């Protein structure tokens, strides 16, 4: 096994998509080469102590660059969003298990919030592999819409763009011809993933969700970012590490 390492990497592109959310590109050929959709990186964030985890949004293997999306929610993400081009940051990655699309011809990608970033990476990877991909993304309103591509099904809570309602309203518009060959992957807030999970169960679809939890280390040593999954033991559940066993879980395994 190759020894993993911490990289010191350079910020090479930065673009604000909306006022509180930016899209950053970092030069790191090693991470760009081996990352899979659903994996994340842990990035040092200015003056705060712990690194911050971000789902990988895209990779440019030719130029050795990977991209992440950062929504400003606190001090760490605020400082990262203020990095200037050429800034050097410490980075661990790629981390976590990522999505396993093996055995599925039709893949539905759905999500919202910062979940649209890993969905973007999954979309690019799957379309390049010639898979049949449908994307359904939900936002609060038109102003929040980011990374929207032609052909995506779009929903907004406000109804001022796309279908009015949650992503469930968008998913209901999809015709599923072969449930056994169709996989749905969801990245978004917990209530959305829970709703998508039960929608998928009703349709008889396998559903993968990318869980989010406050993280300490990102590499599986602190046991801070646990997710409750079903277990046959006396408690009926066990806590597993979001960063190591996840962040992607079969939605049927998660204790919601």
């Amino acid at each position, binding site marked *: 096994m190759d020894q993993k390492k*911490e990289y010191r990497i350079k910020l090479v592109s930065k673009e604000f998509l909306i006022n509180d959310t930016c899209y950053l590109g970092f030069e790191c050929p090693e991470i760009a080469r081996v990352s899979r959709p659903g994996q994340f990186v842990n990035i040092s964030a200015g003056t705060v102590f712990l690194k911050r985890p971000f789902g990988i949004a895209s990779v440019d293997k030719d130029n050795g660059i990977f991209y992440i999306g950062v929504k400003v929610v606190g001090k760490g993400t605020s400082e990262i969003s203020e990095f200037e081009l050429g800034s050097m940051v410490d980075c661990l990655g790629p981390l976590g298990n990522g999505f396993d699309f093996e055995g599925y011809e039709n893949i539905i990608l759905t999500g919202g919030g910062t979940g649209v970033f890993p969905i973007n990476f999954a979309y690019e990877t799957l379309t390049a592999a010639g898979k049949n991909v449908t994307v359904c993304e939900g936002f609060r309103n038109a102003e929040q819409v980011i990374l929207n591509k032609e052909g995506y099904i779009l929903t907004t809570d406000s109804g001022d763009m796309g279908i009015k309602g949650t992503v469930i309203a968008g998913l209901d518009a999809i015709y599923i011809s072969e449930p056994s060959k169709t996989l749905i992957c969801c990245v978004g807030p917990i209530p959305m993933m829970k709703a998508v999970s039960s929608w998928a169960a009703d349709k008889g679809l396998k559903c993968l969700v990318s869980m989010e939890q406050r993280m300490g280390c990102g590499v599986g040593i602190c046991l801070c970012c646990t997710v409750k999954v079903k277990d046959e033991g006396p408690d009926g559940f066990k806590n597993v590490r979001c960063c190591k066993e996840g962040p992607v879980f079969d939605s049927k395994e998660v204790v919601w």
Partner: protein
Amino acid sequence: MSTSLNVNVGSVNLKSPLILASGTCNFGRELAEYYDLNILGGISSKGLTIKPRAGNPGVRVAECASGMLNSVGLQNPGVDYFIENDLDFMKDSGASVIVNVAGHSYEDYIAMVNKLDQYSDKIDALEINLSCPNVKEGCMTIGSDPVAIMFITSELRKLTKLPLWIKLTPNVTDIKATALAAQEGGADAVVLINTLMGMRIDIRTRRPVLTNNTGGYSGPAVKPVAIRMVAECSPILDIPIVGCGGVADYKDVIEFMIAGASAVEVGTACLVHPALPVKITEDLEKYCADIKLNLKDLTGTLQRW
């Protein structure tokens, strides 16, 4: 590796003073993906209990000034699973094996030590955790009371010849009293310190950030507290001290040793930089070569004003 880093904690010889602190390295497996654990003096296992523990629910970590709060709550697979699945891995790593023993009651600690004593060929020391702040019973409840510390230490002393290191809590008025109690109970060393109990509040919701309400504060911020406690205890103890708290570079290791530590644990900083012990080890070797000394000669060389 240079012999200049060799240290002894009582009868335990370590090839380096650097030990991975319990609760920040699991059982070493994940960190072995980043570097060869054989450079370490030792690895202190995740705190183990007699039965598996799921740990605390909800949010378990909160960022703080120069450190973090955690309320993991001793999530661990239980001592039997550890013996079956992780002990050999730790032994084979080449680092000395320190097994961290936690419990809810005297009986738990006794059962744990009895069990682990049967594997004394694979274990270099038992670190008795009388200091975890994140569980309701045992640990810090026992470790705040000198009488209870002396009692449990002397009971465990009867059960094993393995070195007993008592890991103490800083959440007491007088660390000297609890350290002396461990010594009088027959401890081979004390480990100073576990985390400081703390709380953070979300001002928007007015709720604690941690679902457990409180947690243990660790990281560089707590180092001065740990150094002070090591320096306070060093002159009055006959047994060695293992320093622990906020170590982030080689100078921190040296500072702990001057204060009186024979070995030093590194923990929270590895959550940010997993391979940090490699850098610290290189820097310690260079330091020893530059000033031509063996690291163990530094212990307790504090020149007070």
